[in-house]
């Protein structure tokens, strides 16, 4: 699913966010990326969705190399990804429902499916009752769940969630992590960057990526979930 080879990322201001990292993610994998603030979690996710390009090394996602020149390929790759951004990136002035629908209108769904997928996704994150609320009137935790709904409504092959539980209470956080984790399937992988290490301590059959100052160490945990 993902192959990161000897990748470094240096931002234009000189910050070295990722330092020669290697990471392979298979087709049916649940990956947690943890590490202190500023360690490079978001930077790694940005490389995978093509928001940044590696300064050196290669990033391949579903067989497609991420590079600036291949904008058409990048676009069709992005269609298969369900991203949850750390800063949410919801579109203000629209309802929760319209935000979720906007994220899937250009995918291969019929008009009916668009509406149904969006409604189902909102229900999954427990926000059916807020479907018609403007997103700027939602609490941060609610808004966060809208952005998760937008990601899962896409029925993606890869979920990239950056700090999806940051503003949720314990129960909601567990619930959201379970929902995201449930998308791990035969050919679907889920990558979650999170500070909530206490929630994943006892999880089995997952990959834990620990980041520190741009370097990573990978632990593949086996066992029954």
């Amino acid at each position, binding site marked *: 699913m993902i192959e990161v080879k000897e990748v470094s990322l240096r931002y234009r201001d000189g910050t070295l966010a990722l330092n020669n990292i290697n990471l392979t993610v298979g087709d049916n994998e649940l990956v947690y990326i943890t590490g202190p603030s500023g360690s490079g979690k978001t930077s790694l996710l940005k490389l995978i969705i093509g928001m940044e390009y590696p300064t050196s090394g290669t990033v391949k996602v579903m067989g497609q190399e991420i590079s600036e020149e291949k904008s058409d390929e990048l676009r069709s790759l*992005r269609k*298969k990804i369900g991203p949850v951004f750390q800063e949410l990136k919801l*579109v203000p002035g629209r309802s929760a429902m319209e935000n979720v629908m906007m994220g899937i209108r250009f995918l291969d769904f019929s008009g009916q499916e668009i509406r149904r997928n969006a409604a189902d996704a909102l229900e999954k994150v427990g926000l059916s009752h807020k479907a018609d609320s403007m997103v700027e009137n939602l609490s941060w935790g609610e808004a966060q769940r809208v952005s998760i709904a937008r990601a899962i409504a896409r029925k993606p092959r890869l979920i990239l969630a950056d700090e999806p539980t940051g503003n949720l209470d314990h129960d909601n956080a567990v619930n959201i992590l379970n929902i995201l984790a449930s998308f791990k399937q035969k050919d679907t992988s889920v990558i979650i960057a999170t500070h909530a290490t206490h929630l994943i301590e006892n999880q089995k059959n997952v990959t834990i990526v620990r980041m520190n100052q741009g370097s990573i160490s990978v632990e593949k945990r086996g066992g029954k979930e």
Partner: protein
Amino acid sequence: MKNFISNLGYFFKEAGRIIFSNKLSNIFTFSGTVLILLMLASVVAGWNVSSRLVGMLEEEAEISAFFDEDLDQKEALELAEKLSKLDGVRNARVVDESEAYERMKEILADDAGILELFEHNPFKAYIEIRIDPGRTESIIETVRGFKEIGYVRDNKSVLKSINDIIRGIKTIGTLIIFAVGITTVIIISHMIRQGIYNNRDQIKTLRLLGASPMFIGFPFICVGLFMTVAAGILTSLVMLILINKGYQIMGGSIPFIPLPPKADLLLGVTLVIMGVSIILGTIGSLFGLSSIKDQ
């Protein structure tokens, strides 16, 4: 995009949002477009009227070729036939002595009595050649080359001024049409760029989600089209009123210039304005859309 139709509602809603999110600026754009289209509409109306004048003037462009007196009538007709086949000649016909006499009588009108003083008809037969006024020089040259032709009477100065008038009208019209086209395209594309800039966050997000430029850009094309078409409709309505007033005041004709039937003129102006609005709106939007790539 297989769900294009089911997204139409979304596209129109987004377009409306883009228009209303920047009301003041877009009101200026709209008024500016209406004013420019009004200018175009006046040119089109003026062109319509003056093309009749031009047609009339072109019809009037003629030279007279006097031929050897020993040509008999049949030979004269053959010569006219030959002349009428020349490039740039509309037609050529023989005006015989008696017709020439009648014409002069008409021209002299009240003073025609003077013709009575002649015992014989003093006028000679000639060939009247109607020509394309743009090619006066070369046609006269060719006609002079015929050995049967003795003398060519041209109205070079008249022909030249006819030609100048025609050229002037065409040049000014063309210039104005270009100016209108370019200005409208710039105004509309600027408006679209503004809209894209104002919505840059949304556009960035949609791109990250894998939306095509077509999906992102279509609402903006709708905005451009909607603005120009609405401006076109308003312009057509204003012209409808103006033309109606104009015909009332002039009672259907200006001296020497036959006005076209009012319905023809209105239809012509409306068709041109609406067609031009749609075309310019599309071009302007597409130009403006190119800035999506920068976001």
